[in-house]
């Protein structure tokens, strides 16, 4: 198992990666070098908060309160998503 992400990390999308509404097909997509990833509602909510200013802890707090979900569950989902995007070099932590 990989170590937990630091709660003080300030994630942000790497340069050359952006979230965009997909008018033709509906929903949102993450556009990156040679990649188009469909972003579901959860992913959009997380990525929109990744501005390089907010800490991971703050992002989790905001989402837990917005969706009235258990904080630990939110933390785990956010970490899984961000770790995956970091491995793809799409998010900087």
């Amino acid at each position, binding site marked *: 198992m990989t170590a937990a992400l630091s709660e003080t990390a300030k994630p942000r999308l790497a340069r050359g990666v952006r979230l*965009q509404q997909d008018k033709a097909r509906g929903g949102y*997509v993450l*556009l990156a*070098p*040679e990649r*188009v990833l469909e972003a579901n509602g959860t992913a959009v909510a997380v990525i929109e908060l990744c501005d390089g200013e907010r800490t991971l802890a703050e992002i989790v707090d905001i989402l837990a309160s917005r969706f009235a979900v258990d904080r630990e569950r939110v933390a785990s989902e956010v970490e899984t998503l961000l770790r995956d995007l970091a*491995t793809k070099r799409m998010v900087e932590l």
Partner: protein
Amino acid sequence: MSLLPPLPAPLGLLAELTHRCPLACPYCSNPLDLERRSGELDTATWLRLFEEAAALGVLQLHLSGGEPAARSDLAALVRGASRAGLYTNLITSGIGLDAARLGALAEAGLEHVQLSVQHVRAAEADRIAGLSGAHAKKRVFAGEVGRAGLPLTINAVIHRANIDVVEEFVREAAALGARRIEVAHSQYYGWALKNRAALLPSAEQVAETRATVERLRVELQGTIVIDYVAPDYFGRFPKPCMNGWGRQSLNVTPSGRVLPCHAAETIPGLGFWSVRERPLREIWQESPAFNAFRGTGWMREPCASCPRREVDFGGCRCQALALTGDPRNADPVCMHSPARALITAALEEARRSHEQFAYRRYVPATTKAANPLTAAAEG
């Protein structure tokens, strides 16, 4: 048309801005019959096309060629594409783009740079590219991309003359600050098909490359992403070419003809429509070339009844044509193709071959050996 389900919109558009290129790589996928500068679309037509592409649903624009930097209006094209909301990717040799021009592209909204590298050693790289000094310029350019803050992908087309240095390619790309590397085996179209006997590696080399890539992916996870494009001649099933004809992407040639893939013009009898004459949406939906091999209705056996017919879409139409003489045949790479022996024979021919490269040049050659980039500057 109204009885059919709506056609999905394309995701990506490859704009071959020009066929002019300072390099002469023998694996080039451009057609043998290269487009002259006088036939290229003007700035305004490209910009209109980018607007139409975004409205149609295209998300990513790949600015390619030839060498796109041979167009003096490249920054204007990037700006227009960016304004239209397209994700802009520059596919370049890195020759002809200094820091100032690159800075102007970044400022115009360029989002990603893909740089081709031919080898890890300068002498070999320059020999493959057919241009002395090219490799050193590419290394400088890679540094400039980093300084401009742009994400960099290294594209390494793999063949017999560089397959022994795949590991060094990946390590060098990481050292150059690239976020991604494409370890892409040559695909045998255009100039590459002409040079096939000199380019095809052996099955043992291919297996070793695959293992090297797997090992490096684990070791370098989080540092560099390695995309691997397998060589289809060594597979049992064909590649799902373009993820299906006319399903996700389109190509526009320097003079504005719209193609389902870069090699489609090799197929005789297809009607290609031009952006000079029609809107892109109409071309995507109605052009005879796009509809010729959409879906599965065109298929013959063994494709028509194959359970994989919507997995690999019968493979590649251009390869079926080039090797069997009929684009409706199964891709001969497929183990079920009656023409599979052609692939085996090509591999055997390459194993015995000591052929020299036939470099990508404008043919027939003009009396004046014009450098395409100099020609651009003169104009």
